[in-house]
C-alpha cells in the first residue's frame, strides 16, 4: 500500500540524519510524519482503581525512521504501539499515522504489524500465511504467490514455503511473521518485542536481517524491545520510557550510520558501547535512583 503513503521510499534511502530536537515542528509541516503522538494518555479502569498506562506522551516518528521504545515492563510500550495500530483508543490526546487518524491508516493498510508471538495460522502453509494480508485485501492469486516467494526469499525461507508453521523453529516462525508484515510494502512497521522469545544467536541474526529489510523497504519502524543493545543496534532513536505512569523519560539519538551499513561488527564498536551506556543512563536516571531499569535486559 505504499501508493497511499505520502513519502516515496527513494527520499529516505540516504543516511539517516542524527536526530535533532526529536519533536521539531517542521517534521509535521514538510511531510506528514509516519507517527505523530500528541499528549496521549491511556487509562484502564479496573476494579482495584484506575491504571494509568500512558500519561501525556509526545512522540514523532519521521517517515523512514527507526525508533525503539524501551523501558521497564508495564511502562506502556505495548499500549502505545496498540494505540498507533488502532487496536486500542487513547483516553486523552491525539495520534496520527501519516497525517491521518489511526483507524483510517488501518483501513488503508498503511502499516504492517508483528508481535512477540509469531501468530501464524497453524492450518495454513508458510506461504499461505505470508499471503494472508494480500488475500484479504483482494490481491490476485498469481501476484500473491509471486510476492510471497519474493518475501520468503528475502527472509531466507524460500525452501520452507510449503511447510506448516509448526515444522519451523521459533526464529523461523518469527521471520515468516516479519515477511507477512512486509507483504504489502507498508511505509510503517509496528513491532512489539518480535525477537523477545528468541535465543541470543538467532536474535542477532534476525536483527541484522531486519536492518537489511528495512534498508531495502525504507519503511519507518516503531520497535518495542526490552534489550538495550538491540535497541541501539537497530534504531535511529531510542525512546526511553518510565513506568507508573508511563511516560517518555528521554529520547536518545543513536544513528550509528544508515541501516544498510550496519553490520554485526558494529556490536564490537566503541561507538556502539557508548550509545548503550547513554541509553542505560537514561533508563536509570541521572539521579542514580535504583530499580527504574527493572525488567530491562541490559546485556
Amino acid at each position, binding site marked *: 500500500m505504499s501508493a497511499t503513503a505520502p513519502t516515496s521510499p527513494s527520499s529516505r534511502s540516504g543516511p539517516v540524519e542524527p536526530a535533532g530536537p526529536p519533536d521539531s515542528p517542521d517534521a509535521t509541516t514538510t511531510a506528514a510524519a509516519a507517527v505523530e503522538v500528541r499528549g496521549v494518555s491511556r487509562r484502564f479502569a479496573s476494579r482495584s482503581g484506575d491504571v494509568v498506562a500512558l500519561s501525556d506522551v509526545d512522540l514523532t516518528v519521521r517517515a523512514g525512521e527507526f525508533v525503539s521504545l524501551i523501558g521497564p515492563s508495564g511502562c506502556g510500550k505495548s499500549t502505545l504501539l*496498540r494505540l498507533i*495500530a*488502532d*487496536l486500542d483508543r487513547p483516553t486523552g490526546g491525539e495520534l496520527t499515522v501519516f497525517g491521518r487518524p489511526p483507524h483510517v491508516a*488501518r*483501513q*488503508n*493498510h498503511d*502499516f504492517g*504489524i508483528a*508481535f512477540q*508471538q*509469531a*501468530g*501464524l*495460522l*497453524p*492450518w495454513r502453509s508458510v506461504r499461505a500465511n505470508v499471503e*494472508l*494480508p494480500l488475500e*484479504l*485485501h483482494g490481491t490476485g492469486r498469481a501476484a500473491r504467490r509471486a510476492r510471497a516467494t519474493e518475501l520468503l526469499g528475502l527472509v531466507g525461507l524460500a525452501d520452507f514455503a510449503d511447510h*506448516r*508453521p*509448526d515444522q519451523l523453529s*521459533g526464529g523461523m*516462525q518469527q521471520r515468516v511473521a516479519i515477511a507477512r508484515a512486509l507483504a504489502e510494502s507498508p511505509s510503517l512497521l509496528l513491532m512489539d518485542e518480535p525477537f523477545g*522469545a528468541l535465543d541470543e544467536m538467532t536474535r542477532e541474526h534476525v536483527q541484522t536481517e531486519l536492518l537489511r529489510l528495512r534498508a531495502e523497504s525504507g519503511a519507518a519502524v516503531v520497535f518495542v524491545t526490552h534489550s538495550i543493545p538491540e535497541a541501539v543496534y537497530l534504531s535511529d532513536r531510542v525512546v526511553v520510557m518510565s513506568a507508573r505512569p508511563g511516560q517518555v523519560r528521554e529520547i536518545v539519538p543513536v544513528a550509528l550510520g544508515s541501516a544498510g551499513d550496519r553490520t554485526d561488527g558494529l556490536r564490537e564498536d566503541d561507538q556502539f558501547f557508548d550509545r548503550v551506556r547513554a541509553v542505560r543512563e537514561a533508563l536509570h536516571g541521572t539521579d542514580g535512583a535504583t530499580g527504574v531499569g527493572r525488567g530491562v535486559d541490559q546485556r
Partner: protein
Amino acid sequence: MRRQVVTGAAGVLTLAVLWEGYKLLAPDDGVVVAGLTVLPRSNDVAMPHLWDMAARAAAPVTSAPGAEPLWLAVGQAAAFTLGVAAVGWVVGVTVGLLTATLMQRFRTAESALLPWVVLSQTVPLIALAPLVRRWGSQLEIGAFAWQDWMSVAVIASYLAFFPVSVGALRGLSSPDAVHVDLLRSYGVGWWRTYSTLRLPAAVPHLLPAVRLAAANAVVGAVVAEVSIGLRGGIGRMIVEFGASASADPAKQWSPIAGAVVVGLVAAGACVLLSRALDRYRVSEVS
C-alpha cells in the same frame, strides 16, 4: 481409517464373545437374590445363540409366501432410519453452528440464548415427540405436507444441535488474541475474520461435537420412531418383533443388530469427515 475399522470390528467381536461366554457360564434363569434379579436370564428365549440369530436373519420375515428374507427387511429399515437420522444430523449441525455463530457475534445473544440451549435438553424426548408431530401436522404450505418422518428428523436434529452449539461456541471463541488483533489490523470485518480465523480455529472443537451429534441423531431417530409410531424404520421394527419374542426369540435381534450397524455407519461417516478436515486439526503454534 484402518485403525477405526479395526477398533469397530474388535468392539463387535468382544460383544459377541461376552454374549456367548455369559450364556455358557450363567445359569439359565439368571441369579435372583432376595427377589431381585442380579444377573439376567441366559436361556434361549432371553438370549438366543448368535448362530440362531444369524440363521433367523437368513430366513423369510414371515411365513407368508413370497416374504423377503429378514436380513433384507432389516437392511431396508436400517437404511431408512439412517437417512432420517442423517437429515436430522445435517439440520442439527447447521442450527447448532448458526446458534453458536449468533452467540459469538453478539454478546447479548449469548446471555439470552445459552440458558435456553442448555434448558432445551432437559425436555424429555417422550414428551416432545407427540408435540412435534401435532405441530407438524398443522403445517401445510401449498403442495408441501408434513410427513411423520420429518417429525422424527426434527427430534433427531433437536438432540444433535446441542453438542454442536456448545462445541462451536467454544471453538469460535478459541482464537488467540494475537490472531484477532492481526486480522483487526488488516481492517477486515466480522465476516472475513469469521471465515479466515474463527471457523478454521473451531474445527478441533467441532469434530468431537459433530461425532456426538451423530450418535445423538441416531438414538433420537430410533426412539422418536417408536414414540411417534413411524413405520419403516429400525426402531419401530425392534418394538414390533419384540412383541413376538416368546414365539420367535431370535427374530428381534436382527433389527437390534441393524441399529448397531446404523450407529457404526454414522461413526464411520464422522471419521471420514475428520479426515477431510485434517489440516485444521493441527495444534496451535505459538
